[in-house]
């Protein structure tokens, strides 16, 4: 019995860029094999090589016993491959998309009838057969894509970040589909940016800069960083961070809402001098490592990545965000349903919920982009419906698309947005200097945005939205598409801004990010179903103290669904 996938010395270069080097992998039949790695590590290229839609520059790969170059057609005919972008035809209905996928792969009518019924029922799409794919939610689209790739019952499924931008609820359903499929003896290779998903994999390969740095089970990978993680409770977070930053033994520092978490270098211990400094300020306790920490330890970029400058450079007059029975309706459809919330200045509030729960709509109302149908909202003391103009210079907004001008350079984008906020002359120069230093953009001023990585664009978008020191900063899925290390760096910035007094209102699909937020709001079908600290949300469901964010999130959503049903 040979392995489902076998590669040796696999490499690929594009023009003068070596994207993948010397990949030796072996994936066994029936495995769920995960690919993990930062942006640009070569995950997508590897997937394409395995799907035989890209030829390697060196080395070779055997997939299902076929050579991916000489027998590409054989490989194509057997694998299911789900690429990162859109894989559906928007104008075709759910059923038509599925039919197309089946017919080009020569699935017999009988098989199609039984399999499509099974798959669509499992994916919960049975009720939407005639809906055009373009009108499905992100989660439904991904599920349908997966169904389309399972319709010919391929012995091997290659999934490139299938759950990117998909909410936790849909993600769970997606994985249930995958599990069922795997039980039939098929093999799955999946790349993911979500650590909770990586945990589900049987084995993981960690890719960085085109090389495979480690292949192991999640538990083994975590074990590698065992003993290097500490949690620090402190009332004087800023001071403690300054001390820790000076210690060369600290590889990484994570600033969470209520505590700090550090990772030490291999074999390192905090020196007595540092411990003495921390004495009385903070309490250190060893902690269980997460997969994210294993990721950061393996990532060669950790040391090289630009560390944001030390916090509290700027003091901002924070503003509160207040909504009173706020509703937004489009025709008959209520996107935001009587939401009341009060966010005090300087708080980081995380806003979670499935796709289509109304999070983005709510942010748009707060930013004065949409008028509420009912109720009132005040941001920094200004009414969003009556004082929208005055509001604009008091808020910052960063959309999930990192809305920047791709044809302008970093510096030009900064200058433009500073000008848009009416900043000029010396003031503009200083502000730009501050913002680009803070977001570690110094040195990249002359680069065009179109050639920047997602992580840099994300920091630039943040820089552009804080140039005018807004009282409230709204971030709509600011970390989507960015790898774990850079997501951590980004949150570091958010904490810094909040500690300076800025109120931060942020939506996210990454549940692990909830621990960066002071409080969380959970939205479902337009309603605010839970609001409080992570601990409060846990207690409301009577969950144990070590219950993960996912359990908390899903628990509340299910509860809301039950209430809605009754």
């Amino acid at each position, binding site marked *: 019995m040979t392995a489902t996938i076998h590669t040796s010395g696999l490499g690929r270069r594009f023009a003068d860029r070596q994207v993948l080097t010397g990949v030796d992998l072996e994936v066994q039949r029936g495995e769920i094999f995960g690919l993990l790695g930062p942006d640009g590590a070569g995950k997508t290229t590897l997937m394409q090589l395995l799907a035989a*839609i890209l030829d390697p520059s060196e080395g070779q790969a055997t997939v299902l016993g076929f050579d991916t170059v000489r027998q590409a057609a054989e490989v194509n005919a057997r694998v299911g491959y789900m690429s990162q972008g859109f894989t559906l035809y928007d104008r075709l209905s759910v059923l038509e998309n599925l039919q197309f996928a089946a017919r*080009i792969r020569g699935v017999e009518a009988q098989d199609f009838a039984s399999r499509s019924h099974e798959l669509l029922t499992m994916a919960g799409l049975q009720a939407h057969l005639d809906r055009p794919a373009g009108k499905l939610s992100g989660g439904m689209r991904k599920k349908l894509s997966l169904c389309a790739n399972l319709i010919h019952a391929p012995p091997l499924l290659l999934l490139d970040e299938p759950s990117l931008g998909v909410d936790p609820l849909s993600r769970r359903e997606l994985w249930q589909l995958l599990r069922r499929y795997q039980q039939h003896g098929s093999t799955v290779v999946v790349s993911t940016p979500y650590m909770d998903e990586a945990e589900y994999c049987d084995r993981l390969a960690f890719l960085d800069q085109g090389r495979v740095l480690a292949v192991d089970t999640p538990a083994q990978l975590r074990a590698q960083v065992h003993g290097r993680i500490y949690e620090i409770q402190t009332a004087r977070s800023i001071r403690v961070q300054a001390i820790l930053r000076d210690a060369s033994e600290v590889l990484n520092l994570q600033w969470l809402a209520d505590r700090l978490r550090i990772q030490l270098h291999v074999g390192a211990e905090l020196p007595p001098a540092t411990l003495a400094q921390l004495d009385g300020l903070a309490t250190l306790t060893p902690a269980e490592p997460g997969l994210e920490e294993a990721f950061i330890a393996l990532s060669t970029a950790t040391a090289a990545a630009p560390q944001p400058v030390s916090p509290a450079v700027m003091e901002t007059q924070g503003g509160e965000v207040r909504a009173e029975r706020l509703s937004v309706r489009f025709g008959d459809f209520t996107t935001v349903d009587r939401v009341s919330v009060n966010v005090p200045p300087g708080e980081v509030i995380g806003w979670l919920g499935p796709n289509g729960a109304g999070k983005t709509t709510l942010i748009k109302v707060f930013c004065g982009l949409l008028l509420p149908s009912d109720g009132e909202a005040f941001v920094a003391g200004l009414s969003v419906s009556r004082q929208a103009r005055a509001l604009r210079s008091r808020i910052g907004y960063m959309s999930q698309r990192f809305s920047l001008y791709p044809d302008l350079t970093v510096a030009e984008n900064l200058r433009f947005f500073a000008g848009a906020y009416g900043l000029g002359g010396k003031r503009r120069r200083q502000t730009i200097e501050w913002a680009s230093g803070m977001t570690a953009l110094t040195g990249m001023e002359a680069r065009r945005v179109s050639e920047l990585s997602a992580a840099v664009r994300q920091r630039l978008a943040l820089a552009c939205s804080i140039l005018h020191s807004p009282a409230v900063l709204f971030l709509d899925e600011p970390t989507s598409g960015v790898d774990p290390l850079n997501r951590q760096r980004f949150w570091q910035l958010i904490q810094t801004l909040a500690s300076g007094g800025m109120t931060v209102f942020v939506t996210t699909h990454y549940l692990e990010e909830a621990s960066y937020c002071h409080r969380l709001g959970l939205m479902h079908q337009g309603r605010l179903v839970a609001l409080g600290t992570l601990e409060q949300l846990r207690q409301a469901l009577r969950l144990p103290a070590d219950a993960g964010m996912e359990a908390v999130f899903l628990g509340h959503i299910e509860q809301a669904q039950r209430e809605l049903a009754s």
Partner: protein
Amino acid sequence: MNPRRIAAVATKEAKEVLRDPITVGVAMIMPLIMLLLFGYAITLDVDDITLGVLDEDRTPASRQLTEAFTASGVFHLERELTAPHAVEQALQRGEIRLALIIPPGFERALTRHEPSPVQLLVDGTYSATATLVSSHALAIASGFGHAAGPPALQLETRVWYNPSLSSVHTVVPGLYAVILMAFPPLLTALALVREKETGTIAQIYASPLSSVEFLAGKLIPYAIIAFVQMAMVIAVGFLWFGVPFRGSVAFLLAISLLYVLCTLGIGLLVSAVTRTQLVALLAVLIVTLMPSILFSGMLFPIFTMPYVVQLYTLAFPGRYFVDISRGVVLKGVGLEVLWPSITIVAVYTLLVFALAAWRLKKKVA
């Protein structure tokens, strides 16, 4: 080649197109608009050309000359001018296109059988109009006073194929070629590149579909649309504009099917080599739309172009189809005469498809 897979692609593509009413609407209505505009507007039958007369003779003979102009039906007397500077002004303003200046002593010269000079000033800014105006004016003026019998040598012109010299008869068959060159490639050019941009093409690559099957499937719905366009345009030309149809309708339809495949193939080829819809669109506009109007011989005869430009026109299938369509429609000829042009279109078509299939290797890079 697996017919079931081709059918799958074809039905998918057809559904997608039909659910995009704007594209279908543009594809169906634009050719008609183009046909109507060209059919009505391009005409040599100039009439109502504005004429200004400066009559310094003021005799019965001079009045007769003016009448000869207005009676022709081509000119109508817009202004009676009184002074030479008024002539210039009227021409400059564009109030008149032709000025007739009859000098004093016109009648006297005429009766003495001396050459009696009159001046004809033509506004040359619209050069196409100017040519027509001057030839008409010359004919009227030279014909004036020809009391004697016919000249010894008479040129007896016989116009074949289009005796009335109707420009509609010229333009409409030419338009068949232009319309089929301008619109079908626009549809196919976006067909592949759209899948590239949205990313759905990766699914196609990673499926058992071969690139030939994929291209063939894509082609079928567009070929049907283009063929309907063709039939529609021919019908309108025949029924509405009364363009004669001397050759075989079936023959023309058969050849136009070949030509449509060729133009669709050009669109597919553009689509196969470009990466974004925008670039594909620009490329198609430049590769097909413009040359099909300018270099097909539809409006501007090719033999008058500079030699280099003439060579350039050889690269566009439109010019061959203009020959074919005029040949069948106006001259009533068939394969026996048109085989060279048809062969070239056929070879062109094969070449385009071979190139497209070769370029569309099932690889992302």
